[in-house]
């Protein structure tokens, strides 16, 4: 419960209509894109950095826990307010403050929807490459807090490769600015990168300086079909060795293909063991075409049974529609899904998938595997019904085995979705106690009272 006098104070800062606490509001801000939920006591939606700072000052004084929230599309329960207290909703801060075309740098507020931002810069011939599949329903602030990646990260990198500087508010209300428009910058520790992927545990990000690129003018997309998973994995390296860096190489296993096909009827090869969706792009049409020819040739040499290059923009969109619909089409099969996000060295992909299939058989739970083959980031999704306690118990065992396997193969727990709370039980396995303690120490410097998104990313000290 937040005391009425505090509520009043908050209302004077952000306006009465931006302080919410009806039962319906508390429910609406109790969930993210997992199956977890916990109600906050209050939701406060500030309009700018200054208001964030003033709100946080009050929360600090009153010892109210704060959970920053973008659009709640997170897959790690990182924005669930288990601690009660305040959800700091950043969606109203959705202005693009500046697009500096000369330096190709944009200044945006944290609540901008990533797809809106992308569309705006693309109208100017510019390009913001990070493309999480949740691009239409996640915010730049959330992307930064989770260091979101997407299919394009093989060639273009992840969110952290595009953040030059941040404005953020510390738990005590102090406003800090990190980095700047200068591309090279070693003045002081790199706090910008420290905040990247910090899942709202260190500071609330309110503005970001984002690096832009010229928009690639041409793109070609192909689908390569495989009867053998190993051949698909081999293709990835073979393409890179030819000197071609495709924008994306996405992998879907047989279960994924069948699940999508069942619902979308795109004409995908349902008897294949795997397919790769490969896209080349660039500013010179001939180069893009030539690269695609190389890709197609290499794929065939590696054993692809069929390579289909999209001839029209519509065909290309269809291929991508299939890929983007993976995650949601899974939900048509069972009421719940747990989407894991392990990351392994590229060469270990086939082994990882084989082991996942064995785990799936052992616990008798369907697991579909898809992901970013170019960088070894796989999304094994476990399908289940949480209402069945036995199934839920098996899901937990499956998760544990998958994480153990990832670490054993030289990989890690999460490539882009974050730790939140869901992956904490396995954190020690991946990081070890010393590294966890070090991170807890860093947290203490930023947040001595432990009020900011408590218990997320790593256990509270």
């Amino acid at each position: 419960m937040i005391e009425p006098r505090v509520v009043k104070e908050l209302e004077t800062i952000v306006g009465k209509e931006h302080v919410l606490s009806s039962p319906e509001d508390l429910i609406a801000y109790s969930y993210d894109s997992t199956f977890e939920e916990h109600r906050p006591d209050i939701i406060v939606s500030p309009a700018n950095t200054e208001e964030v700072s003033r709100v946080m000052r009050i929360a600090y004084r009153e010892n109210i826990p704060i959970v920053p929230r973008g659009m709640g599309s997170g897959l790690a329960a990182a924005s669930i307010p288990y601690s009660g207290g305040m959800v700091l909703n950043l969606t109203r801060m959705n202005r693009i403050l500046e697009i500096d075309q000369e330096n190709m740098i944009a200044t945006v507020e944290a609540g901008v929807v990533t797809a809106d931002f992308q569309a705006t810069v693309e109208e100017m011939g510019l390009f913001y490459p990070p493309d999480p599949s949740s691009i239409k329903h996640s915010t730049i602030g959330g992307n930064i807090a989770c260091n979101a990646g997407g299919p394009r990260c093989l060639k273009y990198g992840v969110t952290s490769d595009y953040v030059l500087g941040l404005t953020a508010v510390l738990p005590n209300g102090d406003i800090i600015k990190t980095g700047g428009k200068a591309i090279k910058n070693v003045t002081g520790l790199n706090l910008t990168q420290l905040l990247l992927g910090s899942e709202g545990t260190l500071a609330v990000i309110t503005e970001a300086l984002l690096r832009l690129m010229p928009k690639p003018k041409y793109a070609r997309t192909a689908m390569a079909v495989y009867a053998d998973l190993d051949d698909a994995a081999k293709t990835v390296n073979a393409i890179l060795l030819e000197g071609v860096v495709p924008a994306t190489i996405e992998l879907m296993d047989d279960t994924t293909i069948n699940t999508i096909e069942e619902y979308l009827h795109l004409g995908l090869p349902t008897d294949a063991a795997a397919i790769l969706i490969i896209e080349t792009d660039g500013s010179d049409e001939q180069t893009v075409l030539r690269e695609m020819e190389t890709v197609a040739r290499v794929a065939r040499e590696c054993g692809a049974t069929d390579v289909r290059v999209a001839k029209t923009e519509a065909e290309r969109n269809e291929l991508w529609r299939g890929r983007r619909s993976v995650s949601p089409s899974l939900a048509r099969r069972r009421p719940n899904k747990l989407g894991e996000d392990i990351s392994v060295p590229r060469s270990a992909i086939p082994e990882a998938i084989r082991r996942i299939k064995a785990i799936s058989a052992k616990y008798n739970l369907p697991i579909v595997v898809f992901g970013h083959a170019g960088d070894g980031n796989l999304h094994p999704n476990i399908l289940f019904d949480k209402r069945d306690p036995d199934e839920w118990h098996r899901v937990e065992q499956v998760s544990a085995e998958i994480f153990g396997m990832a670490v054993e193969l030289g990989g890690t727990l999460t490539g882009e979705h974050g730790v939140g709370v869901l992956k904490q039980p396995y954190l020690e396995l991946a990081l070890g106690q010393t590294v966890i303690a070090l991170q807890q120490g860093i947290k203490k410097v930023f947040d001595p009272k432990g009020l900011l998104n408590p218990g997320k990313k790593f256990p509270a000290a």
Partner: protein
Amino acid sequence: MAQHRRDDIPHLPTEEQYLNCIRCGLCLSACPIYRETLRETDGPRAHVVLTRKYAEGEIDISPEFVDLMYKCLDCEACNAICPVGIRPADLAMEMRQVIHKTQPQPWLKKPIFHGYFPHPLIQELSVLPLLLYQRLGLQALARKLGILKLLPRQLQDMEHMVPKLPARPLRQVLPEEVPPAGEEKHRVAFFLGCFQSTIFAQESEASVRVMARNGCRVFTPKQVKCCGMPAAGYGDIDLVKSLARFNIDLFLPLNPDVIVTDCATCGSTLKHYGEILKDDPAYAEKAALFSSRVRDISEFLMSIDIRPPKGEVRARVTYHDPCHLVRAQKVRKQPRDLLQLIPGVEFVEMKESDWCCGSAGTQILTHYHNSLAVNRRKMENVRATGADIVATGCPGCQMQLNMGSNHYNVNVRVVHPIQLLEEAYRREEAEIAADDPSTGD
């Protein structure tokens, strides 16, 4: 805990309607209301979660809950975008039915939906809220109906919603049967909507003339009652069913090849009669047959071999997709094709042509600020096309666009596509008349 309420609540959504929602939030990106308020509670994802929590007995219906369900524009953009197949807008509509059955009746419902819409005569005496306005003034009407005080600007905005009203409702004017010009190729029953009859009479007049020109014998039953949409919007499904039965009994005996309407909203409801009455043993079959014959005017005209007009309409024209046409009936291409049949029309697409205009029937009365905010996005997209005319086949949209063009100062004429087609035919006929020496004196 699950399903506490299953047995005692009529119309409660079933588990499969919400269970598989993965809460990904993609629907937020398409929801016109969320995109304005940026409040999770207003979005489709919250509607699904709240419905589930109600069904599972975790929460009760509060005034806030009612308001949330009524805030939904039912534009169905969330239904269309959900990759899992959840239909959040339908859930909101069904929760309105639950509210209707379990809660005390809110304002408006009784006087309007039982008294007003179902009976053509009463409806014609008092087109809500516009004709009455001319007699009593809106403020007085609002008071009579017990609505909160309307804002001065809201009143002004509402005044701009309608063009000049017809002197007499079309229902009283239109012949019960109009023969085809030339050989009879199609037997059409025309469903004259309430708003078409009383406000946009010119449009339905045009529809009938255009069909007659193109080989249709057109019957317009005069006893036609409201399609049921307003009652559905307020959760009164029993009333919708009784209207459906009445209209089915009125139309089927005419044995039409098709039942045509030029109102997107009526069309979407009529096409649903089969679904609405599927559990009524006496009507299920008739209702399915009825619905299978229903066509939107553009859908019908583009499915027959219509003769393009020779007269010109010189204008830059853009098109707004009514939610009840583009999503509820999947009619997207036909109105555009129809417009492009007209010589002289320079057709331009607007950005987000299928984004809701904010009308949803009575939102301008009940949720004025949201309705205006949603409308702004639409009007800016219209403005950006530089069009002289925005065409759209829905009276609700037309009123809202009329209002918006005034409020946001966008200089466009709002028409039904059929009006432009009619104008082109008329020009053609006038030219022929002028050229023909036998008609001169």
